Each structure stands twice: as structure tokens, then as C-alpha cells.
């Protein structure tokens, strides 16, 4: 079985973000970096699938500057077999279709049975790359999966829908799956696997968008405007309840 996992390296969301000089994205200084949370679920699910079927080869792919190899190494330590690094210092500026084109370009002749990726990135959050890869490869995609089962070429997944309802979807491989919180708990890499990961193949590739021209552009990026802060009520509980009811009556219509 041949499995591809597409991951992204993103800043830790607790970092001190600043807008960059061009005013179009965040500044890279003083940020801590980690693997995109949703991609961790993708890696974990792929490793579990390999543990289930035994005979599988996991390729983990990441696009970005050299530092993203740290995220690839983490995925290799979690259990992926080989890494692919599309070395692209400008990846943060690229629109989703460009990223999807690079991935599809790599994947098109590799006969991947399943492609796992996160449902979106924590920084850009477009949620488009996974489905675009599927479209470019001409295979189905199932998004926001929170449950996964595989049996002999058929995947059965649970999708998260609006309002808390779930959908059960069955698909035959090859298929692209985008992973959502709740799918699994990613493992903590063991030390022998961290050691082994250092020796695994990590293939560097040049970015190739296949002549695709820019179709969209970020013109400006800004922090949300600071609105009036919340109101903190203090005092004894009965008193607090009275104050709250008063406020709800005065400022809202919920008690009308």
C-alpha cells in the first residue's frame, strides 16, 4: 500500500505575531514552529493504517523553506518511511491552487492509494489544498474526517458536519482524506524512532507550479481592531446574578 501524507509547518498559535514589512502576512521573527495540528492527525492515521495492513510505505511531503524539514523529521519519527521536501522559500505567498499543483505534480505517477492531509492549516486556514489535490489527480476527496476504517481497498470514514451531526462516507481507493480534530490522538515519538528518523530518506525537490500564473494576491493583512473589552463582574454570587440580570435586561433583548 502506498500512502502520501501532506503536512505544513505553521507558527505556534501562542507566538507573538507581528505583521511583516509588506503588510501582507505575519513576520517570521520570534515565532516558534510546529507541525500543523490537523496534519498531525493525518500522520497519526497513516501510521495506524500501516500498523493495520503491515505492508505499506508512507511518504510525508512538506513545502516551504529549509526549516520545514523539522516538521518532516517529526513525521518520520512518528512512523513515516520517507520524506519529500519541496524547497520553496516563497510557499507562504502562494495561493492554495499553487500548493495543490506542486503536490499533485509529485503524486501523479506514484500511485498513492490514500492521501492524508489536514482539513486546513492553522495559519492560512483556506481548507482548499486537500480537495484541490484530489481534483487535480482526478480522485475523490472526503473532508473533515473524525473517524476512519480501512478494509481491502475500501475506506469508511466519519465526517463532521455542521451542528454536530456526522456523516458516514464510504469510498474506494485512491482517495484524499482531510483530517479534523477528534480523529485520533497523535503519538509521542519514541526515542528509537527519533534515532531511526535521522537516517530515513529525505528527498529535496524544486518547486514546480507547472506554469500556473498568480490568480489571487493578498493585498493587506491586519490584526482585528480592538473593540471594547469584556466586562468582569465581581462580588458575591447572589449579587452577581442580580447584576447579570440587570445587564441582560438593559443591554440585550434575551429577557424581553
Amino acid at each position: 500500500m502506498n500512502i502520501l501524507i501532506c503536512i505544513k509547518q505553521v507558527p505556534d498559535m501562542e507566538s507573538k505575531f507581528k505583521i511583516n514589512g509588506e503588510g501582507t502576512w505575519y513576520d517570521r521573527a520570534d515565532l516558534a514552529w510546529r507541525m500543523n495540528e490537523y496534519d498531525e492527525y493525518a500522520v497519526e492515521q497513516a501510521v495506524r493504517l500501516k500498523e493495520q495492513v503491515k505492508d505499506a510505505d508512507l511518504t510525508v511531503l512538506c513545502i516551504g523553506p529549509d526549516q520545514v524539514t523539522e516538521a518532516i523529521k517529526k513525521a518520520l519519527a512518528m512512523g513515516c518511511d520517507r520524506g519529500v521536501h519541496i524547497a520553496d522559500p516563497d510557499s507562504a505567498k502562494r495561493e492554495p491552487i499553487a500548493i495543490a499543483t506542486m503536490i499533485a505534480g509529485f503524486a501523479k505517477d506514484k500511485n498513492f492509494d490514500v492521501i492524508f492531509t489536514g482539513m486546513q492549516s492553522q495559519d492560512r486556514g483556506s481548507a482548499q489544498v486537500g480537495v484541490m489535490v484530489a481534483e487535480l489527480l482526478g480522485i475523490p476527496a472526503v473532508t473533515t474526517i473524525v473517524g476512519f476504517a480501512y478494509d481491502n481497498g475500501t475506506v469508511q470514514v466519519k465526517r463532521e458536519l455542521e451542528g454536530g451531526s456526522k456523516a458516514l462516507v464510504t469510498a474506494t481507493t485512491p482517495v484524499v482524506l482531510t483530517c479534523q480534530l477528534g480523529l485520533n490522538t497523535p503519538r509521542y515519538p519514541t526515542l528509537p524512532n527519533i534515532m531511526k528518523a535521522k537516517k530515513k530518506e529525505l528527498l529535496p525537490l524544486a518547486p514546480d507550479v507547472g506554469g500556473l500564473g498568480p490568480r489571487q494576491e493578498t493585498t493587506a493583512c491586519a490584526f482585528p481592531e480592538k473593540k471594547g473589552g469584556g466586562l468582569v463582574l465581581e462580588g458575591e454570587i447572589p449579587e452577581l446574578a442580580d447584576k447579570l440580570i440587570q445587564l441582560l435586561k438593559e443591554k440585550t433583548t434575551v429577557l424581553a
Partner: protein
Amino acid sequence: MEFTREIYWNVGHGFTTLAPMYGLLLVAVAVCALGFFKRLKVYRLGQPLDRTDGRGERVKHMLETMLLQTKVFRVPGPGTAHALFFWSFFVLFIGTALIVAQADFTDLLFDIKFLKGTFYKLFSLTLDLAGLVAILMLTGLLVRRYLIRPQGLVTKGDDALMHGFLFAILITGFLIEGARMAVTEMHIPQLAAWSPVGWGVATLLAGLDEAGLRTLHVVLWWCHLLLALGFIAVLPFTKFRHIVTTSANAFFADRGPTGKLTTVNLEDENTEKFGANELGDLRWKDIFDADACTLCKRCQDRCPAYATGKPLSPMQVVNQIGELAFTRPDANLIETVGREAIWACTTCRACQDICPASIEHVGKIIEMRRNLVLMEGEFPGEEVMAAMEQTEVNGNPLGMGYAARGDWAESLGIKPLAEDPEVDLLYFVGCYASFDKRNIAVATSFVRLCQAAGVKVGILGKEEKCCGEPMRKMGNEYLYQTLAMETVEVIKGYGVKKIVTTCPHCFNTLAKDYRDFDFDVEVVPHALFLEQLVADSRLPVGGEEFTCTYHDSCYLGRHNGIYDAPRKLIRSMGGRIAEMAKNRDQAFCCSAGGGRILAEEKLGERINVKRVEMAVATGAGQLLANCPFCLTMFEDGVKGANVEEQLRPRDIAEVLAERLALKNA
């Protein structure tokens, strides 16, 4: 009149006595040696470990702990009884050896007798009293074990056998003496008076005629001999073995630095296994420890996990290892001890500190944790795994952005060394004082105190990372070493001469564990540093007297023996300390050590609530601490115990800063 007695009286000193006596002694010694030899093979199942360095010191330590019973004596009551029993029995042993030496060597070969005159009088009196004390102490211990039955004391067949053997040896000894004296000394009171107990027994036996007394004497003499030899023979097969193993363990004891863990070689690419999940992964000393254990339960009595209903007893862990070694060495160690027990340890060292048998409990638990973390990726809970990942990304387990680490200090006018490396000392702030609002107040107080004393302080700011202590204690040696190496490099890069910490966990790690990474910068905990500033009159403190209680953190207290300086500091700023029942080396942990600060406490009662209740019981309104983990647990504990109005947990630096302000006001 010659003050002495005929040795081998009534028994005879001929071949028919000596041949069976020495023959049986040989058998007894052989059985004993064989028994220990067999156990030696089991100890060898463990990994090698050199515990023979500094032999002079080791021998001295062994003789002290054994002959002076220094460790045994630390627990009054049973400890006193054991020590007195030991000394009495030891005196009786020496006495017997002197008799053998005279009768079968010096007198036999050179006609030299030394058991006579004044020496004999003292000899006889000493032995008589020793026998009496031994019987009294043994009776006391018997009453404790079988009638009082202290909670948690494990009593087995061994214990009955030991009491039986010892009583039989002592009582037959006095009966033999009484029978002999009834025949030979009753008419010489000035001689008999030097054997008062024997005289008493002789008086009781006075009703028998001489023939009866002589028969009784000779029969009991052989019984006594057989019992004594039997005692030697059964040594390795009963808890009597502790006479040898516990003494030997004092020789093999860990020579410190106290609480420093062994550093795993992670560079060796041939290592495929880390930590211990099988007996053979432990070191021989870990197996030997089980043989040195006497089940005195002192460790269990002091274990905060055990005291709050968690499935951990340090005594049990040690003995589970012994049981595996001797009965099923191939079984899984972690399954035997149990994960919940392994994760419950706070590494407070109360067990190891009190252990009279030099057993190292904590290291064993850490080895099992290392196996779970490094080989299985297992933690006590998802929150701990998340904290590990946070530390990997941001260098702190709280998950705060690393770049904001120095923000707390911006308004205080102190700079990171990257901006100004010319400082008197580096303040290694630690994660909690950098990010946790409650502990930032401590850091701020500490900096203000330094500034008031004219000490120029620098911090590492965003270059500082977690020292790795909670990760290491949780078993994550890989993450610890990564953090340690980075921290050592950063600090060395600035040529720092002196470091002060407000966190005893940072202190212990930088001062001891980092030595394995070639780090030898002087590290001082703030409790000592501030005490020195006050002692040197560099910090004028004053104000009205106040009452407080003081909590010895495990890592300043038991790990570093710092008990007096913080108390002196508190008194010098007008504090009157109402001590908690468990203080100094007996202090009860706050629950946060051993990396437990990262974990939720899901089993049993809450340790911090229990400690807070002990503080409330003193009636003092303030609970002074010296550790951010303790402070965090106490702030939580006063809420849990619902005593927020009664008890205010504070760091000593905060109180000192306040007193400084009062003085200036």
C-alpha cells in the same frame, strides 16, 4: 580471690566438645555462605554499576550506619529499640568471641587468660546487662509487631522465626548462666553480684539439686550452641540477612550528589533500549536493595502518594523488584509494579532520605518512567504529553510563546544578557516565574530586592528555556538532555560567573544534573542568596512581627539540606515560625515534584490540600514557600481546602520585599 569463671564448666574442654562444636560451626558457616552465594547470582542479573569508588569513605559510612545505628535511630520508638537491641546483641557477640578467643586460643596455646579480675567483673556485668536490654527491647518490638500492629507493617513467618530464635538464644543464655552460678557462685556473692541477671536466675533455680542443675546446664548449653549456629545458618534465608545486606548496602550507598539522576548515553547508536521494563534492565544495586530492605515501612509512612490513597508504596516497589528477581525474572517489570504506581511518585525523596538501608527508590521509578516515555511514548495523561510538546516548541510546559519569556521584566529595568551582559549575576527565572502570573510576582519581588541591595541582575529572556527538570523526572531524558545542552551553551556563551534561581527544581538541576554537561557555574537558591544579603546588612528589613508557617520544599530541603537559612531569613525579617508537624527532613511534599506539576492528580486525595490543612493547623495566617511549584499547589490547595480566608501562601521573597517597603515607608 580470683574473679573469673571456668570456661566450658560442666561441658568439658576436650575433643568431644570442641570437635562437634567447631564441626557444626563449619557447617553453619558453609550453609550461610552457600545461601549468600546463591543470592549473589541473582544480584548479578542486574546491569553493572561501580559502587566501590572512595572505599575509605564507604567503609566509614558503613561502620557509622551499622555500629552507631545513625539511620535506624532517626525514628524514635522502634528505631531506639532496634538500636539498643543491636548494641546489646553486638556486645554479646563480642563477649562470646572473647570467651572463644581465650578458651580456644590464648589459653590453649599460650596459657594467657584475660577474663579475670576487674576486666572479668566488667565483662560479666556488661554482658549480663546487654542480655537484659536485648530481651527487653525484643519484647518491646514483639509487642509492637504482634499486639499494637502499626498500620502498614507487614508481618510474615520470617518475623516469628526471628523473634523465636533471638528469644531462645537470649533466654537459654541466661538459664545456662543461672544453672552454672547456682552450682558455683551462690556462696560467693561478691562475684555473683557482677552477674545480676544470672544471679537472679540462679536464685530461681536454687530448688534443684546439683545433679539436676548440671544436667539442665549441659543440655541447655548444647541447645544454645545449636540455636546460635542455626542463627548463622539461616541468615541468608530469612530477614536476618539484613545484618549482612543492609550493612553492605551502606557501603554500596549512592554517594551523591543527592538527587542527581544518572545521565543516559543517548549518543550511543547501538543502544536499542532505554529505561527498564525488565529486571535485567535495572542495575545489580536495584536488586540488592530488595535484599537489604527490612520492611520497616518508614518509606511508606512518609510517601505523600501512599498517604493520599494512591497505589504507590516505595517499600512495595523495592520488594516487587526483589520478588521478580528471585522468583520470575522474566516477567514484565512495569506490569508488576503498575503504571499508576510508577506515575504517582513526586520524587520528594522522603523514602530515600529516611531509609535506614541505603535503598534508592526514586532511581528505580525513574528508570521505569524512562522506559514508558522513551520506548512507548506513554505518559500519565494527555495533559503531560501536551506539556512535553509545548516544551519542545516553546521551551516551556505552559505553552506560552517563547518570545514573551522576558516580558515580565520589561518594566523593572532589567535586561536580557543579549542586550547587557555586564551583570553581577544571572537570574535563571524558570518557566513559572516567567509566565505564571502568581509567580511573576515572586520574580518581581526578587528583582526589586536585588536592586535594593545594589546587585545588578540580568536574565536570559527569550533565550532562556525550561531547565528540563519536570521532563527528566517524568522520564523524558531525551527532551531533558536537549534542553540541558542548549541551556548550558547559552549560559556559557555569556561567561556567567554566578546564577541565582527562585525555583529549587532549576537550582538542583543546574547545580547537580548539569554537571554531566561540563557545567560548573556557581548556582545559589534565592533563599540562601537573600539570607546572605540580609546578614550582610545590604537589605534593611523591618516592620512589626508576624506569624507564619514555613514549608520546606523537597528540592531545597531533602535534596539539598537547606533548612536553617530560610528560617533564619524569616526570623530576621520579624517572622515567628509556627512549625507544621511535618517539617524539615520530614516535610510533606506539595505534590508537584517528579514532573507531577504537569499532570492532573486523579487518584486518591489531593496531596496539596492535605499539606495546606497541615499549615492551617498551625494557626498561622501565612504559609511561606520557596518554590514556584509549591506556591502554585498551595494557591490551588487553599481553594481545595476552602481556607482562602485563613491561609495566604506566599514566597519568602514576596514577604521580604514587603518588609523592605515597610521599613522604607
